[in-house]
């Protein structure tokens, strides 16, 4: 937020009123400003450089006022005063006018092609017959600086140059040249320098060195010459000394060079609207002509007044107030947005002046109305939004676990997600390349080189910082680490971890192991191989050899625990043995019944939205209804009669028929139509849920006759053709899809069957029997492994597996085929049947 410093007494003089600090603070608050500090030059110097330097400095009271970042029109005393005076109804917002010079041609700024590669845009204007005083001059310079720092993005987007027009002569040329070929005496220097020399001269300049990078490595530097070859400026670095502005300057040539034309126009408008106040013809600005390389010309400043129309209902509805159209127009005018009631319904025409480049949408106008109304005068209301709350399941699990881990005697730590590369690699005895770490491009210190990939270093650092605390120290943290992951749109993802450390005179592996067991108990995972959890010896350079184990849950590794390697302990400036556990907790989430939110977004839109380039007027333009034109008294009368014995247009509840009719009526009906007015106010109360109302059965509101209809008929109905084409395309697609579907091989359902084939007695030749069984051949039958299983009394049965295609081979068929070998087979049973 930019801060503007103004002299208090000067400000009050301009405002024509003296305020106490509190009163002025209050005024600022209302207007969206903030009286940040009350100080003086003396105070500032003594604070920054010491009392000795401050002696002799001015002790005139300064107000430091914070201005919203998009209000460039409030960045100087002139603008602030104008804004506040209009707000307080003491002044009518001035109209800024662009005028042609009284005599002769306008000043010309010719842009050459060379500028394209470095700084392609330029705009210019002239302030004619201006009167400077020391204060005005200071403010003029200060505004340039404020604009440079804010909208101009430290001169990278736009740079402003102001010149004493009487010292130079047009036409001016804006070109770009190799730095060695540019030579001039820069502002406040005594001799000439080449651009190359200047760049090295300003390397040490506390102010200018910040701008050098903008053009430094370009082959050509931008430069503006007058018709005699005098350098006006070398944007965005420095002006020439020749055309320097002084208190005596009468005519000012303002140029803005830019990489962003929109911003250049805004900046130029700001400069001239703010200071044209001091011209002999206040608030007029003399135009200048900019000639482009292609010969095209443009006149600047634009000083464009744009008109927007909106309804007072829109403002009332968005703000939650109920003011008349006139009142809202009056409120907007207070905000320098001259507004008029057009008389068409509740429409207001708002004029956006060139000083209000921040107003780009109706919502900006609505905000100004709310500000003028006073935010703190708006009544509080409670929306009737009905929703059911859900917790993010991962956070819910985390919250529950944290509680019980603390109950298990461990204290929660909270460490940074960012750390040094060393913390997650060297200090843990790992290579950074193994870590999948996300690296930060612009860390200010080593503490912010990477996003952590493990919670362990943070806990070890917490131990180190608390070595004086009584032992043992038992800490835990459940938090996110960040890992690279190509499957994510951004190439990285968070992973929620649980980590705990035990620090004491003995390593206490059993304590950490016990905590793991307790955690698993909390998570309802049993200690067993297979679908439970178990730990198994592992090698890990962070841990003491032979003292590390990997944690497996359902056969998958989720983390590790063990006694830390003495080198790791030492590197974290610890002296005692320490054991630790770290594991993922996301595998324990389970499957919540509620649909889970994720931050992954669909990459292709399923729902096709209608995106008009302009928001359509929320009101239908048609006022024609079955009752006649409701913008006329006759139409309203007919409707009033209709509603005399009815609550709603249709049936016994509000429907879309009511809202459509409501929209058709331009403004609230007069009280002469009492039935209509009652209905109108009643329907108005449904506005919030209007979209949810049942649809209409009857069409009461008629389409506006379209004069173009006849012309359209010449070409037949485009609409129909369109829809026919769409229909055709759709059919075609469906056909293609069906074809594709039929070609695709249907999934073949298969089953694996285990058969028990029992022989007649112990003398049956089992080998022969198996041979017989295997001799059964069918389409879709594949025999598998077999074995002899003792049944008793020396009798064995043949257990044989097979895979069958369900559609072709049934168990009945199989049994029949096998029992056919009567001499060997006594019976066949299906021992197991599994769908594959």
């Amino acid at each position: 937020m930019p801060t503007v410093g103004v002299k208090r007494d000067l400000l009050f003089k301009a405002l024509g009123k003296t305020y106490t600090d509190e009163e002025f603070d209050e005024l600022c608050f209302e207007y969206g400003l903030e009286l940040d500090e009350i100080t003086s030059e003396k105070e500032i110097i003594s604070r920054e450089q010491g009392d000795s330097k401050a002696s002799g400095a001015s002790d005139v009271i300064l107000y430091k006022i914070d201005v919203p970042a998009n209000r460039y029109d409030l960045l100087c005393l002139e603008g602030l005063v104008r804004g506040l005076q209009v707000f307080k109804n003491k002044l009518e917002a001035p109209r800024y006018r662009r005028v042609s010079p009284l005599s002769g041609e306008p000043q010309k700024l010719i842009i050459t092609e060379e500028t394209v590669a470095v700084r392609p845009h330029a705009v210019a204007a002239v302030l004619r017959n201006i009167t400077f005083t020391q204060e005005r001059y200071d403010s003029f310079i200060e505004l340039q600086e404020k604009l440079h720092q804010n909208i101009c993005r430290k001169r990278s987007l736009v740079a402003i140059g102001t010149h004493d027009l009487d010292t130079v002569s047009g036409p001016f040329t804006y070109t770009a040249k190799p730095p060695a070929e540019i030579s001039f005496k820069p502002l406040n220097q005594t001799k000439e320098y080449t651009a190359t020399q200047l760049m090295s001269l300003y390397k040490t300049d506390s102010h200018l060195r910040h701008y050098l990078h903008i053009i430094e490595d370009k082959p050509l530097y931008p430069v503006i010459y007058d018709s005699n070859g005098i350098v006006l400026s070398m944007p965005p670095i420095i002006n020439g000394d020749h055309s320097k502005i002084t208190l005596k300057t009468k005519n000012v040539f303002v140029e803005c060079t830019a990489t962003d034309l929109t911003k250049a126009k805004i900046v130029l408008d700001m400069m001239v609207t703010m200071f044209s106040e001091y011209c002999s013809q206040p608030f007029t600005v003399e135009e200048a002509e900019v000639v482009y390389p292609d010969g095209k010309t443009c006149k600047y400043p634009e000083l464009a007044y744009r008109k927007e129309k909106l309804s007072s209902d829109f403002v009332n509805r968005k703000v939650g107030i109920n003011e008349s159209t006139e009142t809202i127009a009056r409120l907007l005018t207070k905000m320098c947005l001259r507004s008029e009631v057009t008389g068409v319904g509740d429409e207001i025409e708002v004029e956006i002046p060139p000083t209000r480049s921040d107003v780009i949408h109706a919502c900006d106008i609505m905000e100004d109305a709310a500000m003028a109304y006073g935010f703190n005068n708006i009544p509080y209301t409670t929306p009737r939004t009905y929703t059911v709350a859900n917790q993010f399941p991962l956070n819910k699990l985390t919250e529950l676990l944290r509680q019980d881990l603390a109950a298990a005697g461990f204290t929660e730590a909270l460490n940074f997600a960012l750390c040094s590369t060393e913390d997650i690699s060297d200090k843990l005895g790992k290579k950074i390349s193994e870590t999948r770490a996300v690296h930060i491009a612009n860390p200010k210190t080593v503490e912010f080189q990477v996003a952590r990939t493990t919670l362990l270093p943070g806990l070890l650092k917490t131990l180190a910082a608390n070595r004086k605390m009584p032992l043992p120290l038992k800490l835990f943290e459940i938090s996110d680490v960040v890992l690279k992951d190509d499957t994510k749109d951004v190439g990285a993802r968070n992973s929620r971890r649980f980590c705990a450390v035990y620090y004491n005179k003995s390593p206490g592996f059993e304590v950490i192991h016990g905590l793991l067991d307790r955690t698993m108990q909390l998570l309802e995972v049993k200690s067993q191989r297979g679908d439970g959890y178990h730990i198994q010896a592992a090698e890990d350079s962070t841990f003491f050899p032979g003292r590390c184990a990997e944690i497996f849950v359902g056969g998958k590794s989720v983390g590790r625990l063990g006694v830390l390697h003495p080198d790791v302990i030492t590197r974290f400036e610890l002296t005692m043995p320490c054991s630790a556990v770290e594991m993922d907790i996301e595998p324990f989430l389970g499957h919540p019944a509620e649909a889970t939110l994720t931050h992954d977004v669909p990459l292709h839109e399923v729902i096709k939205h209608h995106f008009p380039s302009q928001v359509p007027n929320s009101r239908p333009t048609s006022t024609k209804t079955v009752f006649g034109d409701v913008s006329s008294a006759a139409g309203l009368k007919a409707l009033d009669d209709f509603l005399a014995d009815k609550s709603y247009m249709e049936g016994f509840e509000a429907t879309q028929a009511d809202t459509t009719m409501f929209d058709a009526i331009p403004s609230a009906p007069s009280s002469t139509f009492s039935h209509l007015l009652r209905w109108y106010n009643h329907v108005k109360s449904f506005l919030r849920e209007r979209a949810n109302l049942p649809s209409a059965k009857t069409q009461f509101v008629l389409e506006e006759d379209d004069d173009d209809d006849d012309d359209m008929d010449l070409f037949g109905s485009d609409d129909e053709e369109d829809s026919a084409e769409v229909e055709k395309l759709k059919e075609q697609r469906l056909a293609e899809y069906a074809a594709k579907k039929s070609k695709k091989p249907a999934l073949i359902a298969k089953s694996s069957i285990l058969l028990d084939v029992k022989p007649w007695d112990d003398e049956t030749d089992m080998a022969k029997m198996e041979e017989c069984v295997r001799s059964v051949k069918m389409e879709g039958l594949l025999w598998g492994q077999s074995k002899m299983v003792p049944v008793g009394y020396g009798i064995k049965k043949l257990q044989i597996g097979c895979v069958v295609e369900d559609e072709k081979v049934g168990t009945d068929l199989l049994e029949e085929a096998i029992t056919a070998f009567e001499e060997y087979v006594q019976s066949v049973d299906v021992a197991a049947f599994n769908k594959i």
Partner: protein
Amino acid sequence: MSDAGLLETLLRRIEAADGGVDSLETASILGVDHQVLVGAVKSLLALEDLISAELRSSKHWELSGEGTEIAEQGSHEARVFSSIPPEGLPQSELMKLSFGKIGFSKAMSNKWIKVDKTHEGGPRIFRSVENIEDQVRDKLLLVQKGNTSQLEEKEKNELKKRKLLSEVTVKSYWITKGSCFSTTITKPETELTPEMIANGSWKEKKFKPYNFEALGVAPDCGHLHPLMKVRTQFRQIFLEMGFTEMPTNNFIESSFWNFDSLFQPQQHPARDAHDTFFISDPALAHEFPLEYLERVKKIHSEGGYGSQGYKYDWKIEEAQKNILRTHTTAVSARMLYKLAQQEKFTPVKYFSIDRVFRNETLDATHLAEFHQIEGVVADRGLTLGDLMGILHQFFTKLGITKLRFKPAYNPYTEPSMEVFSYHEGLKKWVEVGNSGVFRPEMLLPMGLPEDVTVIAWGLSLERPTMIKYGINNIRELVGHKVNLQMVYDGPICRLES
């Protein structure tokens, strides 16, 4: 004499005595050290109302070791005098005596002796008076006999200065019978035991009184982190208000979702390396919903949906840059976009409390990462008054009822309001959060219906926590430099009180 024996002896003497006994006197009669007797008195006192003892203290003068020597053998100077024969003594001989040095100078100043420095064979000492009176010894003898009162205060002090006398305070007890006096001792029980309960003996026993002034034994337990305790409360508040928690577990975000989708222009200062952490690996995001991306590009560079747009050259390269998210609103943007993809719009209330990252200058209250609390409501026809109403309800649950709103600026909300609350302690209005209505330029390209308004607010978690727990330096709260004692001692978190 055994301890128990001493106690019984003492009790019998108290029984026999008229009125009471003096501990000092009793000790000398019984021939035990006074301290031992005092110990016995203390242990008897612990038995309720058995005896009562009144502390008495008396001062008296006592000879020091040196003083006792002098009382026996005379003062050093007197001994010097008497050791000098009439024919004198060489000074060197005198100095060999134990009292020589001290006695010599004192005897000289008393003018009892003289030195002949010219004497052949070295300096020699002679008596200079016939008789002396050893006043020091006399005075000390007086003290030794207990007739201290005959000495003047000045004299006593001088002897004290010479370390011959010392003033001793003697504390003794005047012991009398208590209301429950008895010569037999029944030792009171310290604690109730299972045996006493089983055999009922507790009924007859006397129990030692507890000292309720002392602190109890600290329980052996773990502790939750204060910031997380406050986070839990904020989550609770949102859940009470029917807000659903957003999935904010994605610290790495593309500039697209963090800025562009929020209608924050690409040249906005917040997108500078000074304020935002950019990622070098993985440097770029590679997947976007392309149709939506086109609409975002259009609204920035050309405008639309009733907006003038920013009218600049919007570049996908800028949107692709990966960063550490600077606000959780990036996730809100994703959620609102997904909401817009629903077949039919349904109102939602969302919240999140999670980490955000700013590449800012660090100080006592600013860290590079902090927790942002955010609430979002999307419904048809919401008003600014609704936002204020919800904020009022939200802050009431935090114990803040006096609110005031200041117009502010934020690239993606319009109107934007800073929320101020009246601080009773500071007697002024302080900022407690930011709020606003999301701009149509953000919502309409997502595909949300035109009559849907989205209101939102945010605040930091650290600030209320620091105020709540009275912490001035944020590093003591967050990060490894945390003061664990503070974590151990932290109370439960009740925000409303």
